[in-house]
């Protein structure tokens, strides 16, 4: 199976246009971009994908050891871009994928020429004077909740047993938009919320835009400002919305801010 198939990647838009790769964060899959990505598909080469273990990525794409750190996800993205023969892409990453984007850019400067970081946080746990917003106990609480909620996730084998034609089984799978294999969800949550990428920010060597929601309980304003200040030359735009997903709650504003950044930094 190709990397693109493993990660359920889709490519649309004019062939020779600048590539823009949208990467979803912890939670749901590539559908999170459905209100934003179409606005770019007429002028840009738009790439969408599901991270290993999320959305409709192939179950075999996830490896508990390799994906025990964000570097595993970084390597998957690098392999995907090389397979698609894409260089110098604009990487748009939401939440933890913003940090995956930072790791990708610093490890492979030829692959990423600009970064858009949507609702980023370089560290979620408080640390001395640094306010991430969360304590270890909060993350344990989240992991406990995730073990109690599988959100309609089903073992793919159960679908096979029921038969592909079974409408109930299929509807169940289609209904669960944010399904993730339970053990994967818990591991991805731990990697996301226990990570610390503050030291990586200073190594970013390309133009970067931070998109910060006005009120975000996951990645608060202080987290966005920290990212902006730590990345040389980064700029920050505030989206007037509430919550951690401006691409869902304010898609037009989010797309417009990305577009302004792309125009301003176009070579």
């Amino acid at each position: 199976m190709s990397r693109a198939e493993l990660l359920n990647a889709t490519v649309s838009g004019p062939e020779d246009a600048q590539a823009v790769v949208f990467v979803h964060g912890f939670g749901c899959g590539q559908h999170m971009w459905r209100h934003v990505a179409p606005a770019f598909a007429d002028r840009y080469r738009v790439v969408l994908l599901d991270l290993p273990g999320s959305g409709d990525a192939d179950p075999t794409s996830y490896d508990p050891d390799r994906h025990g750190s964000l570097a595993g996800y970084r390597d998957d993205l690098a392999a995907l871009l090389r397979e698609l023969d894409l260089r110098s892409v604009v990487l748009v990453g939401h939440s933890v994928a913003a940090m995956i984007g930072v790791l990708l850019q610093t490890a492979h400067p030829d692959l990423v020429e600009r970064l858009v970081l949507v609702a980023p946080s370089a560290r979620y746990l408080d640390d001395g004077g640094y306010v991430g917003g969360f304590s270890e106990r909060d993350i344990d609480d989240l992991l406990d909740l995730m073990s109690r909620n599988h959100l309609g996730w089903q073992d793919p084998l159960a679908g096979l047993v029921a038969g592909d034609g079974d409408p109930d089984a299929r509807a169940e799978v289609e209904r669960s938009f944010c399904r993730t294999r339970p053990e994967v969800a818990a591991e991805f949550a731990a990697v996301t919320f226990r990570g610390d990428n503050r030291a990586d920010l200073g190594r970013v060597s390309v133009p970067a835009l931070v998109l910060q929601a006005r009120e975000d309980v996951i990645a608060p304003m202080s987290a966005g400002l920290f990212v902006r200040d730590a990345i040389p030359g980064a700029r920050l735009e505030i989206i007037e919305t509430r919550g951690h997903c401006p691409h869902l709650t304010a898609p037009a504003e989010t797309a417009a801010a990305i577009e302004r950044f792309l125009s301003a930094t176009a070579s």
Partner: protein
Amino acid sequence: MTDSPGLFDLAPCGYAVLSRDGLVLRANAELGRLVARAPADLVATTRFASLLSVGGRIFLETHLLPMLEHDGAVREVAVDLVRPDGARVPVLLNADVAEHEGAPVLLVVVLEARDRHRYEQDLLDATRSAEQARAESASLANTLQQTLIPPAPPRIPHLRIASAYRPAGDGSMVGGDFYDVFQVGAQEWTVVLGDVSGKGVSAASVTSFVRYTTRALALDHPDPSDLLRHLDRAMHVHGTEHYCTLVVVRLTRAGGRWELEVALAGHPPALLRSPDGRVAELGRPGNPVGLVDRPVFVTVRHTLGAETVTLYTDGITEARATAGLYGEQRLHALLAGLPHDPRSIVEQVAQDALSYQDGVAADDIALVSFAAG
């Protein structure tokens, strides 16, 4: 019946109407009771998220709100409400996106779920301890297997020898495949590879019995078919229901060459591969030990030239895929194309049989290969 404030307030579940971004617009008495606040104090001042534990807030932002935006509804989500004194109330939550007076709102219903939560917690604990027991049993099986399989064949002058072993499934089941390589005289060595019928601890104990009995018998019974006759008798005396297939090879170094004596007990023959890739079988069929009353064993002699000799268990040839059995033909064809080197042969044959079954072996796989050198 109209939309009576009385009925809203009397609903026997916590009930809130939220603005699209989560501000409480209305709250009923049961919700107030659950969070230990006056309902009126919640209205227009409180975000619903702030009534949840911090983990619940993250879950709301990263999963529930995107699902609501996509599907318009979430059902049966387990979260904890947190009271001002820090006490937690486990609840089940349903939410819908609706329109009210032209504006989108969220309707949220919560049901206290203390008993269900306790029950779920018990289930979770039981699942975890079952998982732990499974891991312990896998580790025990692994330890047992380690005692049955020599980690690597000993170094033998003028002989290159390599082995491979892949347990069936996830390795948690003790299998019956084994091999052993040991010295029986100044210039003499015995190589045994076998497969005890059945699985589990009783098969493992028989495997151990066969292995050590073979070691003891090999000292006084240089002829492999003679050794197998005595082993067969020992199996009958042991009284086990398991039987065993084996291939026994005695190697004697004489005049700068290796002389081989080979006997089979219900086991596939050894495979001789010439440097030019031709594959031939070595050994005459015999009965498994511990199975029939008057077993027949035949010793075949061969002077080892430049060939490699490969012994294997039926975990290879009886590997199954949708395309059918792996089979001897496929093994012969693979062997013919491999490098003329015992290490490469055992690694690549084991790998090919595993890949054939999509990486999960239905039965144990054991291989020993050797060549003069």
